């Protein structure tokens, strides 16, 4: 090895550096996202309107991480940028704006009493949002880095197409697929309801009805032995409730969301006008869901003729409030379904059920 090869400098000028980076032999602060770690494992991803959740295998366990699928632009200033950088808030600069995205968005929205913007609406890429794809890619990047090995399997959730939204769904799926391919993955799309069945109905041989109530929509799938027989979606979800309650109470939807997620109990009598309105619109959502479920099963021409009643499992952030399951059961009992239902239960972890199911699909495809 020559001295030049070894990188020995003999009086040559080098770039001037003034910033001190003293290295003290102590361990750095824990980095935030465990899931930044690129693994050689398949990845399951729930690309939801409200949240993006990733699941990876870590040893014998499943590791999950989530990001809020939202952003808020603020005017650019050097001071603001410094503050964001110092507080490790995810942002990027676009022209004269700083786009803050991910989980920190909600804090800023509450701070400024402004509404967050979403790159997705009704379960699909938001066609009305100019920054939809750049923001979504940035958010995905925080959870799913570049694949370490080319062709790693990544299963991502897609909703069932709502009526008249088939073309939009094709665009949504193809766009995400292309993005993940560019990161080196072999992307596989999985229906959201089926993912819930994969994660929650293993004991039933993946037979039953999986429901995912998310921010933009509710997705339902009926599967027999892991094969989906019927699936549909309704474009009512958490965002619908927030907007509807906001419109009748005069409050910001972001604020309504906070109230909703702050221990709302649907099994108890409402305490104030917000809870009263929330209850009304939850009932409306559930009613729409059960009605559509009855209608879809009745109209399905090829349903499995099983001699066993089917279990129903509910998941998603919108299904988290206490009393949701009971409200759903009540609505279900008032209608007669063409299939017998053995029971309704909430997913073991409603927020991660879809991502965990997607991971099972990814491992299956591995």
């Amino acid at each position, binding site marked *: *090895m020559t*001295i030049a090869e*070894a*990188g*020995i*400098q003999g*009086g*040559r*000028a*080098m770039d*001037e*550096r*003034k910033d001190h*980076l*003293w*290295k*003290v*032999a*102590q*361990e*750095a602060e824990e*980095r935030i996202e465990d899931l*930044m*770690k*690129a*693994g*050689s*494992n398949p990845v399951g991803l729930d690309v939801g309107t409200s949240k993006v959740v990733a699941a990876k295998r870590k*040893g*014998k366990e*499943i590791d999950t991480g989530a990001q809020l699928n939202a952003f808020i632009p603020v005017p650019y200033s050097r001071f603001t940028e410094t503050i964001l950088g110092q507080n490790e808030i995810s942002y990027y600069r676009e022209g004269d704006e700083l786009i803050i995205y991910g989980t920190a968005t909600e804090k800023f929205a509450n701070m400024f009493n402004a509404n967050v913007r979403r790159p997705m609406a009704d379960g699909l890429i938001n066609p009305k949002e100019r920054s939809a794809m750049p923001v979504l890619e940035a958010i995905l990047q925080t959870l799913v880095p*570049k694949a370490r090995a080319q062709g790693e399997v990544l*299963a991502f959730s897609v909703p*069932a*197409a709502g009526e008249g939204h088939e073309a939009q769904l094709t665009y949504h*799926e193809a766009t995400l697929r292309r993005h993940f391919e560019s990161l080196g993955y072999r992307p*596989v*799309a*999985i*229906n959201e309801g089926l993912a819930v069945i*994969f*994660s929650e109905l*293993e004991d039933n*041989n*993946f*037979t039953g009805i999986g429901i995912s109530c998310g921010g933009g929509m509710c997705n339902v799938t009926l599967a*027999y*032995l*892991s*094969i*989906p*027989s019927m*699936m549909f979606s309704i474009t009512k979800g958490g965002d619908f409730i927030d907007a509807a309650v906001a419109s009748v109470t005069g409050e910001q939807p972001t604020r309504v969301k906070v109230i909703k997620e702050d221990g709302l109990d649907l099994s108890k009598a409402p305490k104030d006008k917000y809870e009263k309105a929330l209850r009304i619109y939850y009932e409306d959502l559930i009613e729409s869901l059960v009605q559509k479920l009855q209608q879809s099963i009745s109209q399905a021409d*090829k349903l*499995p003729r099983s001699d066993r009643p089917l279990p129903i499992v509910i998941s998603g952030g919108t299904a988290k409030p206490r009393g949701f399951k009971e409200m759903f059961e009540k609505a279900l009992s008032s209608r007669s379904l063409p299939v017998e239902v053995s029971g309704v239960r909430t997913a073991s972890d409603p927020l991660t059920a879809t991502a965990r199911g*997607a991971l*099972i*699909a990814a*491992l*299956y495809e591995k």
Partner: protein
Amino acid sequence: MRAETKRTERRGPVRRRPIPTLSEPEEFLHALESVGRGVRDPVAKLRFIRTSLSRYQALDRAVRAVPSAPLRRLLYRWLSLEGLHHLLDDTSSLGASPLRVNFATRVSLVLGRAAVVGLGLILGVSAGVAAYRYMRPPAAALLAAPRRVAATPPVLAPVVDPVSSIVEPTSAASLTSAGVTHAAIWLVEKGPQWELYSNGLRIDTGLTVKGTPRAFRVFDGEGTLDPRVYSAPVGLLFHTSESDVWPLEAAYNENLRGTSQGLLRYVQKNRLYHYVIDRFGRVFRVVAEESKANHAGNSVWANAGRVYLSLNHAFLGVSFETRWEGGKALPITQAQLAAGRNLSDYLRHRYQIAPEMCVTHGLTSVNPKKHLIGHHMDWARGFPFALFGLPDQYQRPAPSVALFGFDYDDDFLKVLDQPWPGVKAAEAELAREAARSRRDVEDVRYERQTAYDRWTLKQQSPDDTDKTSAPAATGAGSGAADQPGGGRSPEPAAGRAAASTSRPEGLQ
């Protein structure tokens, strides 16, 4: 049952295969469900169900020809059980148990297979006897005795010990062949603030401070912690100072000097390194050699069947005044190279440090919480080992990966683009181990990472030891080992007298 919608077929997550419809007999599906309940892992179960459904159509035609319903049900069940065989070997699963099929189902599978084998034997023997009676071949004398088969000893795959596989001899001969000069290195002259050695090394001792006395313990490759506490350094760890780097030109003389002074004060205050080599090649002993320096943090290295965790005590820290930037260290100066080589020769000579124990911080640093390598990256690439007469440590299987299954993340790749060859080599060892034990690589990693956690718990931090308890051997002539590996490190004959006068207190 045949009920997939058009949309599902277009977009579903899994391979589309024909599925049975309800117009067909349900016996198979009942059997499938029954067997499926015995599979505990979700991925394995999904694979079993999907595979069985795809096989169903081909087999069903034959089974349906069986007129007896009970026999048909038995056949369906047996076929379903046979669909499990791949799950017994497959490893891409989730769940806590390595057994993805429950005991009852395994028993059913074994019994089913035994029944088939038994039936086959009965039929075979019957057919054979019938044929024999029919043909009655004449007895041949040669057939009276069984044919001998030459006894060939089975060929066993060599067992690779991840520790010993990275071991190389550490004899004096290897030290010489690795580039250490044959001439002894001795203290030529000593002033109040400097020392001059026979190889041209001049050490500035004006800033030297003492710290916590060196005391460390060592694991063997099996995770047994040697109860002895050692006091002599066993390795060298090369660092970059991560300080300002000014152009090496006369115009920047003040900046160059000022930065070096600032660096030395900082290193002294925090007791970071034993030695600092500034841009002009001046060597400063900042932390006394018998003390530990806070230079290595969480780190892993192994050699000669011994494993060292957290190298602050066991290794001497030598820092070059430069910085790590853009995935490599900025070039050191020729003066730094010459001084660094003389210093490492002196230290290796004095403490009989094996060349395999001279390594860079970036190659040893780990994040124990996340089990990631490359927590610090200094000299993770580009240290001129060859010019120091040292083996290329970048090629050696990384002990943190081979022994403890450490991984790397996207941040690591952002800096280095790809890991050094030793990481790849260690990962290949993990993959071979996984293949040997028929497990997923991730399972092997997880097992070894867990072992690391156990080892670190087991390791009593020397910092926490009762300061009144003396290390196993610190005094001269104690006869005990002061370096792991058995014998007391021999002082080079020619240098013994000279070195004994220059040796800092408490050493040998």
